[in-house]
């Protein structure tokens, strides 16, 4: 942020916004300040089955612990764990075990009792080909199964990554030898998903995730072919077809592209969301026909100039208006309520071109949220992380004030109510990144 302002502390924010849940304010603060586990807390995690050392699966010599997430008492995710490679704000919080209970501390002060969730059993299993299942399913949280479509982003290769993104620097869990799926890696997915569904009561949705690849299959070298992003869609379809074998959804009568009934049938919706690039209509139709239920394509930054500066890859392939049109076109295909987009809130305040005033930045974001809502698209937002491997990390960008996120969550929540939209597939249980979804818990 450019301006020098007095940033309100947690208590000051909580006092100023008494109708905003303290737990959610605390969660934002844990993301901004980070959380460090004491040795005792780490021991507690081991005792409760909430700790797994993944070093062996990744072929690493040094320990690489994975925690089974930490929750506030109400089930809200605590953020800011694994913060060693992030730029933070102020002093980090601590997690410590006191009288047998896990506590969040600020210095010496006991703040909140929290609890561990155990790691799922599949962490310790392998597929019949010997692939550790933890490499097949990239999500480490309860409820959500995340599958990497491919493990690269073409924008990084062209030195045009989104400036806050560290996707190619991190994500080592799911790196594969082959960048795109092979019959063997698809079989690994099939086996892993089937195996983990044996863990009853654990999972509620599947996310397909990937970097961007704007190349069209038949247009090598000339990205703006008849159907850009076809490479990416082909990979999604391979995985969707694999997942069709795992779920009891029926095939349903197809509709021709002009809307008339067809003699053919297509796959009914699978419980699957894709966090995808901006696909043209014909590619979205292919995904729908393969059973995709929810399409999430992230605009990241609403302001036109800042979008071009912060997301140069998206701006090149093929610009903000193309991304917006693609998101709106998806509503016709997947239906109102089944399409959403996301803002990386705080990126729009980055120096030197970002907004100078918080209120200006908020107004811009809420303008975008309202525009999408009017068109049947829900906008979530996540808190900016400045992680090693991102351009923002190198530039030493700062995180926004705590109050900024409270105001933004309130604003988005108001728009959500006004347009009666929800995005429960990105709900508070899925990963905890979307603060507006925490507030949506009060919507019956």
């Amino acid at each position: 942020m450019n301006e020098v302002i007095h940033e309100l502390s947690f208590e000051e924010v909580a006092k100023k916004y008494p109708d905003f849940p303290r737990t959610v304010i605390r969660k934002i603060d844990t993301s901004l300040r980070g959380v460090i586990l004491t040795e005792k807390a780490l021991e507690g995690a081991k005792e409760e089955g909430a700790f797994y050392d993944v070093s062996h699966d990744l072929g690493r010599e040094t320990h690489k612990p994975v925690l089974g997430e930490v929750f506030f008492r109400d089930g809200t995710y605590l953020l800011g764990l694994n913060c060693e490679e992030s730029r933070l704000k102020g002093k980090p919080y601590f997690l410590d075990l006191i009288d047998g209970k896990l506590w969040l501390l600020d210095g010496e002060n006991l703040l909140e009792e929290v609890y561990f969730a155990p790691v799922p059993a599949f962490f310790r299993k392998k597929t019949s080909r010997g692939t550790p299942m933890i490499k097949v399913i990239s999500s480490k949280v309860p409820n959500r199964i995340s599958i990497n479509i491919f493990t690269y982003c073409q924008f990084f290769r062209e030195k045009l990554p989104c400036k806050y993104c560290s996707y190619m620097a991190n994500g080592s869990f799911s790196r594969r030898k082959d960048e795109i799926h092979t019959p063997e890696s698809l079989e690994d997915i099939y086996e892993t998903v089937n195996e983990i569904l044996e863990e009853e009561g654990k999972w509620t949705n599947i996310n397909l995730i990937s970097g961007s690849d704007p190349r069209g299959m038949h247009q090598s070298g000339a990205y703006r072919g008849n159907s850009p992003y076809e490479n990416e869609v082909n990979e999604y379809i391979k995985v969707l077809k694999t997942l069709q074998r795992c779920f009891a959804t029926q095939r349903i009568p197809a509709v021709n592209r002009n809307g008339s009934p067809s003699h053919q049938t297509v796959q009914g919706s699978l419980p699957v969301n894709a966090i995808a690039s901006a696909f043209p209509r014909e590619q979205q139709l292919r995904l729908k026909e393969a059973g995709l239920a929810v399409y999430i394509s992230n605009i990241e930054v609403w302001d036109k100039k800042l979008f071009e500066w912060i997301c140069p890859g998206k701006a090149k392939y093929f610009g903000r208006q193309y991304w917006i049109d693609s998101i709106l076109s998806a509503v016709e295909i997947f239906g109102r309520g089944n399409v959403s987009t996301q803002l990386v809130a705080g990126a729009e305040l980055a120096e030197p071109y970002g907004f100078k005033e918080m209120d200006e930045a908020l107004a811009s974001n809420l303008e975008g949220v309202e525009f999408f809502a009017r068109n049947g698209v829900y906008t979530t937002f996540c808190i900016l992380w400045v992680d090693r491997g991102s351009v923002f990390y190198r530039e030493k960008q700062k995180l926004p004030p705590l109050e900024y996120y409270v105001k933004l969550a309130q604003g988005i929540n108001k728009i959500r109510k006004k347009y009666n939209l929800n995005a429960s597939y990105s709900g508070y249980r899925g990963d905890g990144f979307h603060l507006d979804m925490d507030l949506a818990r009060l919507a019956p």
Partner: protein
Amino acid sequence: MFKLPKEVVDLINDPESIKIVATADEKGNPHCAVKDFFTLLEDGNLAFAEEFEGSQTNVNLVRAIWFAKNVELTVRGKDGTTYQIKGKPYKYFYTGPLFEKFYLAAREKWGPDSELAGVWVITPEEVKNETYEVRKKEEDKKHPFFRHLDRSSVRRTKIQNSKSEISN
């Protein structure tokens, strides 16, 4: 922590007793729901299963845990013994061993297509015996002039022919 009397604990653990959870929405409108899975935990807290994430009870409980509001649980046994327990939501689990226990019990009872959103843990703060006979005694003592005078405990004798006099 406040400790529930044994009689209340037995009633909670009796699968045949009726259990009702009462909560309030943001305007104070009450909402009651019958709950099937209820148990007393080792630490003295009560746990019950919530079937649906979007139910009014669940939404009200989220508000209650966020803004420190009370909820009330009513337990009524086959013989009419009834207790009301006032408390505060303490934790909500949708993962972990306690959740799994309730989830499997729900599967057992309602079959393989059953749903369970989470498990609420309530810290009891107050308990009140609401059994009719007990409450009657209390009220008689507290408000003797609210009693109807024709009650057998108030009148010495009953007029035998009063009904026929009226009908004539």
